[in-house]
């Protein structure tokens, strides 16, 4: 009984410790803008689609700039690091990072979903 209680407390503490810095809100581009400035400077995962003709890849400085779009809203994204191999306009993407007042989302990680054309054949 006592051991169980201690365990629950320890677990709860571990969970609490781990939780704080790891949690981020998950929104789409339009949901983000619908909330005004509320989500500025917070850890976010934003879902959208890489806009056509928006990709600027500077290989020399490892700087990737692009725009993600969803629900009629656009967001500028800056990512420092290698361009993911399956990165291209039209793909669905999750960008992880923070949005700052200068209007640019600084992404620390890019998560690409497999392009929708994989699905196009999978009709039900």
């Amino acid at each position: 009984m006592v051991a169980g209680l201690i365990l629950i407390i320890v677990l709860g503490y571990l969970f609490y410790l781990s939780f704080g810095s790891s949690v981020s809100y998950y929104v789409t581009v339009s949901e983000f803008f619908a909330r005004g400035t509320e989500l500025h400077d917070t850890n976010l995962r934003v879902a959208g689609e890489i806009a056509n003709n928006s990709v600027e890849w500077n290989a020399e400085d490892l700087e990737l700039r692009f725009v993600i779009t969803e629900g009629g809203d656009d967001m500028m994204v800056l990512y420092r690091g290698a361009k993911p191999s399956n990165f291209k306009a039209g793909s669905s993407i999750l960008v992880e990072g923070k949005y700052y007042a200068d209007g640019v989302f600084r992404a620390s990680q890019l998560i690409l979903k497999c392009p929708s054309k994989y699905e196009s054949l999978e009709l039900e």
Partner: protein
Amino acid sequence: MAEAGHIALILALPVAVFSAVTSLVGARGGSGRILASARISAIVVFVLYTLALAIILYAFFTKDFSIRAVAEHASRDLPAVYTLSALYAGKAGSMFFWGWLISLFATWLVIQKRNNNGQGILYALAILAIIEVFYVALVAFRVNIFARHPSPPVDGFGLNPLLQNFGMLIHPPLLYLGFAGFAVVFALAMSALITRSAGNEWTIRVRHWAIFSWCTLGIGNIVGMWWSYNELGWGGYWAWDPVENAGLMPWLLGTAFLHSVAMRRQRNYLQTWSFYLIIFTFVFTLLSPFITHGGIESPLHGFYGSPFPPYILAAMLITVFGSMWLLYRRRDLEREEKPASLISREGAFLLTNVILAALVFVIFLGTVLPQVSEALGGMKIALDRGFFDRSCGPLMLILVFFMGVCPVLGWGKSTWRSAKRDFLYIMIAILVINAAIFISGIGRWYIAVVTVCGFPLFIMFQEWYRGVKSRHRTIGENWIRAFFALINGSRARYGGFLAHIGVILIALGVIASSFYSLERTATLDIGESLNIGKYEFTYQELRLKQDNVKASAVAAMLVSKNGGMAGIMYPSYDYWFSHRDHFAEVAVRTTPAEDLFVSLVWTGFNPEDKSATFRVLVNPLIVWIWVGGGFFLLGGAVAFFAEGRQLDSAEG
């Protein structure tokens, strides 16, 4: 032809229902004819299912693109070996194969001679038949794997290049073997609940199946890590993605179950607890397809637009409520004994069990929380890898430490005297090594590594040495002979030792590579180089070539270590015409101390400007993860055959 396969599958459905009904009637004391029908119908389901499998495999191997599943996942240029991967790359194919394994195992139970008596087996058969009905109904009616393509293409779409890898060839079937095996363990457990008998023979049989399932599932996960490391190009092997967690959680629960059943054979502890564990192991094997088929959103991989999740969720709920009801009915059966002292082998087993369950609890919460918070009306949240690292890491370290304590703790109660005898020299040895590490300044985390991993390793070697020495003294066998005779004499124990050594080696690789990995990304022109640690990588040449399948850019990277030439590595960057997408092939150079990992992540395919972006990692001790996997498999196999032998002798 394909229609024949579909018909075979449809026919299997009523036969499986019939098998379930006759098994139930037979178990309640039916006549010999009913018993015979129960057995034969289980075999007929398997035969029909195998026929269907043979037909779909034939369609895959002959590249019959008039069948949609073949057109979507195979292509003319797909090498024959990977045709098998194409089968389970599809959502219907994966469930189809899994269902087939369950029918195979049910037949296995039937034809084993020793199972001919006892109603327990009949209840188990009935439960397996019900599970089969579920799978057959899904793949025969919900997503028909034999469905024709509305307009058959000349060539198929082809298999995702990332899946064209040996690891991905064996990773899914290993997982499915484990999952299907745990279904058998679950069925045996439920039959014991219904018949209210769980004798010695039952325990051995359950352990036999549990070891098999636990071992295949564990190896399946390790192969998945190996694939992720060698194919995906991000330099890691575990991302705490929901799909990965889905394979890990049932394995952890199965591990707890195995340990609690090990206890049961020696003492009468943990009865009800074991039943809870196997019930949830089985439920979590269902959670896995629930997640991979999109029931929980995974950012990385999974099957798109699969209709299965609601059905799987229903099956999970029915399983939980049904088995809880059974457990409730038998609550009067056996009183639990409490361990006399926590400082005993029982106490350590108990703690191990609790920590394993706690681990699963944390991983489960972390996996489903993002989804749940949205369902509860809050904002959708996401958890990053750090959450899992920080919450699971400490628990896993405690587990590894316990592996060292358990083997030397006696049943009942341990004394300080015996503890001193067992631990003193090892503690001194660890202190000395740590002092050496501290002085040499390799890195402070290695002190933790040596303490946590070295302790259990040394304990096991000491136990081994003691066993061999006593045989050598008393029986007079030479050392080598005594070593093998010792393992042979108590295979379950030493199988466990080997598996534990495997897990400790994996922990070693994981800890070292988590804390001491070096990473650099840079864009280089021909002739330029980048430095990382004591290595220098010089970009020498880029070869562009093209065939029918892909256009490749292969870079030659000259590697030198401390100024001396160490070799050339060839990472490549491919454009696949079928998928209209780029895929990187990483180059890995393995030594016992560290891996060099080079991924060519971008180049313009321009003969004039060959500048290219490379990601380079130096990952220490990674190879020990795969070596640990080998020990794990060896240990599982030794224990498995030990149980098999016991099963034979238990029935005379």
